[in-house]
């Protein structure tokens, strides 16, 4: 069952490369949150009940409802519809996602370790690589935050990959990162939108001497 979810997760990455609409990014993030919820639900039941419920609530509530809702508010406020021409055309992006998946496969095979869940690791690593790539190719700061969240989801999967006895501390860390990070980044996007009248990253290039 979890393998199916993991495959779905990899497919969302390809969809990210395909889409140009900001609204779709938000939907995809919500779907990723749901998939992570599913993965946790089917794979983590050996841990303590409290931790288990905490992680379930976190993935369902925070990752798939609160964060996407908040991003949608930010999107509406800044009248974002479509990402204007990323630096690299969609076609090449898809190739790069696929390559990043293949590289991750090879890497996780090379790093093979008893403590590690190989499938999770593969997709987690691909997600992190793709998140960084996503930030690089997009021109507006809203998409940068989306890229950051893809990295965060990758990190979350990575934490599932490296051991079922995940300490609560690690969880809290992820929660803080996503929740506070997104909240504060969202506030700043609004600020940038108000000050510069657009959220193009090109506006933010005055800090030179």
């Amino acid at each position, binding site marked *: 069952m979890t393998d199916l979810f993991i495959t779905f997760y990899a497919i969302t990455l390809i969809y990210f490369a395909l889409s140009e609409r900001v609204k779709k990014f938000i939907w995809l993030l919500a779907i990723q949150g749901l998939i992570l919820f599913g993965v946790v639900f089917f794979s983590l039941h050996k841990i303590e009940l409290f931790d288990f419920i905490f992680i379930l609530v976190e993935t369902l509530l925070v990752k798939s409802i609160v964060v996407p809702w908040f991003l949608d508010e930010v999107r509406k406020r800044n009248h974002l519809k479509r990402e204007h021409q990323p630096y690299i055309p969609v076609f090449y992006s898809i190739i790069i996602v696929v390559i990043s998946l293949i590289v991750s496969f090879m890497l996780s095979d090379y*790093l093979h*370790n*008893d*403590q*590690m869940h190989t499938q999770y690791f593969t997709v987690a690593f691909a997600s*992190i690589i793709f998140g*960084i790539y996503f*930030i690089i190719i997009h021109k507006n*700061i809203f998409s*940068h*935050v989306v890229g*950051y969240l893809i*990295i*965060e989801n990758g*990190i979350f999967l*990575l*934490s599932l990959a*490296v*051991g079922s*006895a995940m*300490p609560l*501390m*690690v969880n*809290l*860390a*992820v929660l*803080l*990162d996503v929740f*506070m*990070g997104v909240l*504060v*980044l969202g506030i*700043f996007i609004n*600020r*940038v939108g108000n*000050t*510069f009248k657009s959220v193009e990253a090109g*506006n*933010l*290039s*005055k*800090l030179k*001497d």
Partner: protein
Amino acid sequence: MVLLFIIASLFFSLSIFLFRNKILTRILSAAYLILLVALSIYAYFHVNQYDSVYYKFDSLGILLSFVLCLLSIPAFYHSYLYLKRHQSSEKDKAVYYATLIMFITAMTSAYFAENIPLLWVSIEATSLFVTFLVFHDHTKNALEAAWKYLFVSSVGLAVAFGGILFLSIIANQSGLTSLSFDKLLLVAKHMDLLWLKISFLLIFTGFSVKLSLFPLFAVAIDAKTIAPSPVNALMSTALVNVGFVGIFRIYIILSQTEAKDWAQHILLIAGIVSIFIATIQIFRVKRLKRLYAFSSMEHMGIVALGLAAGGIGYYAAILQLIFHALVKGGLFFQIGQIRQHFKSLWLKDSGNYFKINPVGSFAVILGLISILAIPPSGLFISEFLTFKALFTAGQYIVVIFALILLTVIIYNFVHFSFQLLYNKIPDELVNQNIKINPYEAISSFALFALVIFLGFNPPFFFTDLIHQALTVLN
């Protein structure tokens, strides 16, 4: 105790933020500073003891928390002056002080954190708070600097978190259930080297944002150019020390294994590349704050070289870190005073400062001598020891290259500082009738004097704490 301190700080910070009352803000700020000093003293008398399961008062943490105390007290005073000069509203002032308190608390938590996830959470918290402080002026530049700093440090810290997860794999293999530093040290010898190296690399990359070291140094430099000068004084010193704590604690684990030489190579490369980039960039600076920010990068490069050299280099690295923090703090505290005399922020439009404010210029000159490690500055001793250690380790080429770069930095640093002090500029660029506050330079003089004193006549408890921090390494 640390947990109580954090709760108290939260309470103070919230009260300041909610009530926005001038007198209350002052009382609570003073109370907070007393609490901060009390915590450091308490920590000193409970050295090497655990404080709840999450914190431990280890020697390095104690040393750096004392440095933080020494810098926080003037930072509050200079913040008061800064906010008065910029005629900030009561709301802005309340937000500023509330955030400053939480920023200092997060740094204290990072110094004493006993396990890696907590250290990471504390560092993440420093990023969030410092972003708001950088954004204090609400200008376009401040917005850009704050955004870039928050974004890049969030991504950097996410990468570092990946490293922590890798570390948890090897911890699990060794039968550990928590990522406590002490426990990791015990099992370090049996760890899988490949995973350990990957995790060090990721954690080093992530925390380099804080240490303003190669590779992720750029955003910190931008943020330091824009932030209010009292915030700068903490960002370039205490926050840099936080980055050092993060990297140093992981390095100690690696130093117990065969990966030690490899880690030292990484530090050597990062150190020398940082000094090189700082040297190139210093040619191009046009603002005093940026000059000081790149100088921090150069000093952190030397710290990394000290760690890379090993032996006496470790001692030199910690000495360098502490002295740099004190001197750089003093220099940044002067900037507020310098800025009020000139209409523009650019170095080319400022000059003749020696005539305008002789006491302030004297502080600038003393700071210049101290930061360039010219005797009697304590930094002379730490840099001398670093290069001695590098020679002993047989790194002749690195030493020669670094010394050449430092010479170039000294030339440029003196050039820009003298421009400020002696350059002839038209009168219309100078704000007339500024009242000079003679007390404003006191904090800088005190910090510079302390560095000279500690360099030549270090008290026993000071050297003892440094030696204790290094016992695992030697």
